[in-house]
C-alpha cells in the first residue's frame, strides 16, 4: 500500500491506484473531461494536470500510477496555468451557445470554467465549424460543433456496449465523432453516451429541448424496468417526470443503465394515469375518491371472506406492500388463493450479460419471499379453474404498474373479468378495463416514485428507496389499499399542492417556473 502526499495531505492508496483515483477518493478537486471511472484511460483532454516533485513537466493524473513517496500537487501556479490553457484550448472552437444548449446547467465545460477558468479569451480568429444536428440513431442526436472529443462515447461503445458504432473521423481540429455510413448508434445502452458526454454534444431525442435542467428536481430511486434494480435518479417538476439517469452502484449497475429502463418515467405521468377510482356496473361508471372506494368495498369483501376470493399479484410492488396485502387476505379474508401473475414467461430468465434481465419486474424475489412466508402455494391453474367452475367469485388484482412489459395483459383481463366481482388496482389507465361491463371497481395506485419501500433484486439484494414526488395525490399505495379493504381507518396524507415541487435554496434572482410559463411561445413550442 504505497503512501503519497497529495496537496500536502498524506494518503495511503491501493497498489496500482492512479493519481486521479486517489484524488477522487480524497475529495480533491481536479479538472478533467476524458477520464471516466467506468472507461479505459484515454488521456486526451490534458486537463487533469498535476505536478510531481522531481519531475520538471506537469503530468496527467489519469495515467500516472502512484508510487511510494510520491509528492503530488495540483494547486501550484504551474498546474493552474496548465489547466487554464487546457480549458482555453477546449473553448477556442466550442460555440458559446449555452442559452440554446440542452446541457446548459449541467455542462462540464461550464462547471470547469467556473472552477478553473474565468479568464478573458484570447482567440480572435474564426471558430472551426462542424456539423450540427447529426442524427446518430433512434435515440441520440449529435451537435458536433460542441463536441470536445473526449472520446468517452467512443470508448463506451467499444468497451461497455461492445457495439463499436461510434468512431473519430478526420484529423486535427476537423475531427468529429460519428458513425460510418450505414451504421446507426442503435444498441440497448445507447443513451449512456448522453450521460457521459461532458458537454451538450450528444443529446437524448426523448429529452432534448423538453426542459431546462434548472427547472428540474431530482431524486434517487431504484429502476423498476427489470429485476436488476439499477440505481437511478429521476428528474421531475410540477409538470411531471422527464427523464431517468443511472446512479453509480458498484454492486448493482456500475455506472450504467439500459435504454428500456429510461422509459419507466413514462408510465408515472398524469396523462397515462388512472386519476380517480371507478365503480362499474353494467358498463355505467361512477367516479369516487380512491380511499372511499376501497373502504366501501371492505364490507362486502369481509362478508365474502374465504376461498371464494382470490388475489392476483404482479412483481412490481414493494416488499412492504406485499406483506400488507398478503397478510390482509390470509388473516382478514381467510384465503390463501393468492396468485403470481408472471409476465414474459419464455424470457423470464434471460440476461444480456450487462444489465438487462428477462424478468421485467423489480421485485420478483420480494413477492416470492412474502408468498413463501405465508405458505402460499396456489398455481395459476387453480385460479383459472376456480373462476371457470364458479368457486372463485371475487378477484382482486394488484398491477401491473408498467403495463408495457405485460404482453398478456389483454388475455388476463379477459380471463379475470369472468369472475362475478373484479377489483383491479393499478396506477395506469387501461381502455380494456374501462370497457368492461361487469361488476368492476378500478382503484388507482401510486407508482414507485410516489412511495417509500424496498425491492429485492435478482441477486437477493434488498434496496430501500424513498418517495421522490407525488403525481396523483389521491392514488393509494398497495398497503393503504389493503388496510382500507380490510375496513381499517387510515390517515392518508394528501400533500399540499406545492409539495410536488418543493424549491429549496432558490436564489432570489433565479427565474421562476411560473415566469417561464408566461412565455407562451417558448412553452408551447414543444419538442423538436
Amino acid at each position: 500500500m504505497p503512501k503519497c502526499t497529495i496537496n500536502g495531505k498524506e494518503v495511503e492508496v491501493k497498489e496500482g491506484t492512479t493519481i486521479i483515483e486517489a484524488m477522487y477518493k480524497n475529495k480533491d478537486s481536479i479538472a478533467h473531461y476524458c477520464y471516466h471511472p467506468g472507461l479505459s484511460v484515454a488521456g486526451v483532454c490534458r486537463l487533469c494536470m498535476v505536478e510531481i516533485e522531481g519531475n520538471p513537466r506537469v503530468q496527467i493524473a489519469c495515467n500516472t500510477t502512484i508510487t511510494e513517496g510520491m509528492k503530488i500537487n495540483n494547486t501550484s501556479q504551474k498546474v493552474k496555468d496548465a489547466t487554464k490553457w487546457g480549458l482555453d484550448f477546449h473553448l477556442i472552437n466550442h460555440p458559446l451557445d449555452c442559452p440554446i444548449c440542452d446541457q446548459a446547467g449541467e455542462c462540464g465545460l461550464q462547471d470547469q470554467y467556473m472552477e478553473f477558468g474565468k479568464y478573458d479569451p484570447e482567440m480572435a480568429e474564426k471558430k472551426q465549424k462542424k456539423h450540427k444536428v447529426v442524427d446518430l440513431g433512434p435515440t441520440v442526436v449529435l451537435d458536433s460543433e460542441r463536441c470536445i472529443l473526449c472520446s468517452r462515447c467512443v470508448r463506451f461503445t467499444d468497451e461497455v456496449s461492445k457495439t463499436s458504432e461510434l468512431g473519430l473521423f478526420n484529423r486535427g481540429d476537423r475531427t468529429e465523432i460519428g458513425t460510418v455510413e450505414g451504421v446507426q448508434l442503435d444498441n440497448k445502452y445507447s443513451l449512456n453516451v448522453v450521460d457521459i458526454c461532458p458537454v451538450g454534444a450528444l443529446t437524448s431525442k426523448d429529452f432534448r429541448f423538453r426542459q431546462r435542467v434548472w427547472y428540474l428536481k431530482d431524486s434517487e430511486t431504484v429502476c423498476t424496468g427489470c429485476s436488476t434494480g439499477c440505481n437511478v435518479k429521476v428528474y421531475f417538476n410540477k409538470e411531471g417526470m422527464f427523464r431517468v439517469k443511472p446512479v453509480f452502484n458498484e454492486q448493482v449497475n456500475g455506472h450504467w443503465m439500459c435504454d428500456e429502463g429510461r422509459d419507466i418515467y413514462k408510465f408515472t405521468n398524469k396523462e397515462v394515469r388512472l386519476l380517480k377510482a371507478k365503480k362499474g356496473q353494467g358498463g355505467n361508471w361512477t367516479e369516487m375518491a380512491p380511499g372511499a372506494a376501497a373502504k366501501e368495498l371492505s364490507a362486502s369483501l369481509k362478508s365474502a371472506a374465504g376461498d371464494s376470493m382470490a388475489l392476483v399479484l404482479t412483481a412490481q410492488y414493494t416488499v412492504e406492500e406485499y406483506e400488507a396485502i398478503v397478510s390482509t387476505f390470509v388473516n382478514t379474508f381467510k384465503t390463501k388463493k393468492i396468485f403470481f401473475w408472471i409476465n414474459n414467461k419464455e424470457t423470464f430468465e434471460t440476461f444480456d450479460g450487462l444489465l438487462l434481465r428477462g424478468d421485467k419486474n423489480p421485485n420478483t424475489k420480494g413477492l416470492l419471499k412474502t408468498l413463501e412466508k405465508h405458505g402460499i402455494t396456489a398455481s395459476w391453474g387453480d385460479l383459472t379453474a376456480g373462476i371457470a367452475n364458479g368457486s372463485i367469485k371475487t378477484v382482486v388484482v394488484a398491477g401491473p404498474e408498467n403495463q408495457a412489459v405485460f404482453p398478456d395483459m389483454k388475455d388476463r383481463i379477459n380471463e379475470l373479468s369472468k369472475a362475478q366481482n373484479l377489483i383491479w388496482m393499478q396506477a395506469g389507465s387501461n381502455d380494456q378495463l374501462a370497457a368492461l361491463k361487469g361488476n368492476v371497481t378500478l382503484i388507482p395506485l401510486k407508482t414507485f416514485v410516489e412511495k417509500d419501500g424496498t425491492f429485492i433484486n435478482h441477486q437477493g439484494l434488498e434496496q430501500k428507496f424513498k418517495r421522490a414526488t407525488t403525481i396523483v395525490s389521491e392514488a393509494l399505495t398497495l398497503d393503504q389499499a389493503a388496510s382500507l379493504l380490510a375496513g381499517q381507518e387510515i390517515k392518508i396524507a394528501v400533500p399540499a399542492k406545492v409539495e410536488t415541487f418543493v424549491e429549496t435554496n432558490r436564489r432570489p434572482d433565479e427565474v421562476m417556473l411560473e415566469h417561464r410559463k408566461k412565455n407562451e411561445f417558448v412553452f408551447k413550442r414543444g419538442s423538436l
Partner: protein
Amino acid sequence: MESKLLTEFYHLDEFRGIEGYKKNGGYVELAKALKMQPQQIIDEVKASGLRGRGGAGFPTGTKWSFLPKNGEPRYLLCNADEGEPGTFKDRLMMERAPHQLIEGMIISAFAIGSKKSYIYVRGEYHYPISVLEKAIREAYDAGLLGKNILGSGFDHDMDVYSGAGAYICGEETGMISSLEGAKGQPKLKPPFPAVQGYLRKPTIVNNVETLAAVKYIIRDGAAAYRKHGTEKSPGTKLFSLSGNVMKPGNYEVPLAYPLIDLINKEGGGMKPGRKLKAVIPGGSSAPVMTAAEVEKATLDYECLAGMGTMLGSGAVIVIDDSQCMVDMLGVLTHFYHHESCGQCTPCREGTGWLNKIVHSILEGKGRLQDIELLEKVADNMKGRTICALSDAAALPVLSFVSKFRDEFEFYVREGRSKVKGTTYAEMHH
C-alpha cells in the same frame, strides 16, 4: 569528407538485387550473427552506442533490452514512414539498398527473438514499396527469410505495409495503431511498445537507418563503429540536405561533422548570389538556427541540443536570405495543423490556432499582440500531449518568432514581408 558505411555501394545499380548485394558483402553478417547468441548481438549493439536514427536518438541496444525476457510472439517493426518535411534518407536507402535493410532486420529480429516483422512504409512511397517487395521475395527464395534461415533453426517472416500517408503514423505508437487497422493515433505510454506494442505484444520499433546500421556493427564490431562520431553520438549518419544549396541530396558523414561543411563542402555551398540566413538542422520540427549559430554547430546530438535545437532525423533545411520567415512559418504551421491526429486537445486545437494566427499575420490582419500570443500558445502546447507532434508544431514557432522577431513585427505593421516586400497574396500568386 564522406565516411561511407551505409552508402558505400549505393552508386551500384546491382546493389539493389540480391546477387549484386551478395557480391558486395551482402548477407555475410547475417550468417555471422546467426552463429552468435542473441544476447551477444544485443550487447554489441549496446556497446556500439548506436542511437535511433528516426529522430528521437534513443540508444538502440537499451531499447531492445526493455523487452521482457520471456514471452512470444514479439514483433519487430521497421519505421519507414518518413513523414518529417525535409527528410528523404530512408527513401534512398530503401530504393538503393533494400537488402541492406532486410539483412539488418533479420539480424535484429534474431537478436530480440522476433519471428515476424513489418516494414511500415509511407503510402506515398510507391516505388520504394515495390523495390522492398521484390527484395523480400528474393530473400525468401534464397532461404534468407522463412523457416530455418541458413540452417540456423531461426524462422522469420517479413512483410511490407503501406501506410495511408499520415505524418503521425511515423510516431511509433501511431504506427502500431495504423498497423493494427485503427486510425493512426499515438497511444498513451506507459505501457511502452517494448512491453505492450503491436497486438499488445512486446514490440521493437526502429527506423530504416538504425536497422541497416546493425549490419555494420556486426561486421566491424562495436569498437570500430565507435571510431566514427563522438562518445555520445557514435557512428555515421545520413543527412538529407535541402534548400537553396548547389547540391541538395543525401550525404553520409560521421556524427559531429561540422554543419557548415555539410552545406559548403558536400552541398556545394549556397546558390550564386545568395547568403545563408538560417538552417533547420533536424527536420521541420527542429528549432531553426541563425547563420551565426550554424557556423559553430556540429552535427551530433549533444552539440545541437546544447544550442537549443536537435539533430532529429538529420534533415538539414537550408534557408537563404531571400526567404521570408513569416511565410515559411505559415507553411510549417499549415503542415502541422493538417497532420495533427486530433486526439489530444492542446495539439488538436493549438495547431489550428497557431496556423490561424500566422495566416492572419500573413494576410495583413495581424495584431502586434499576436506575436506574443503565438509564443504563449506554442509554449502551452509543449510537453502537454501524448506524442511529440504538439512539440513539433510549437518548437518552430517559438524559434522562428524569437530569432526573426523583426520580420514578424514588420509584417504586422506593414502588412507585407520585410524580405520580399510583397504581401502574401502577391508572394503566392
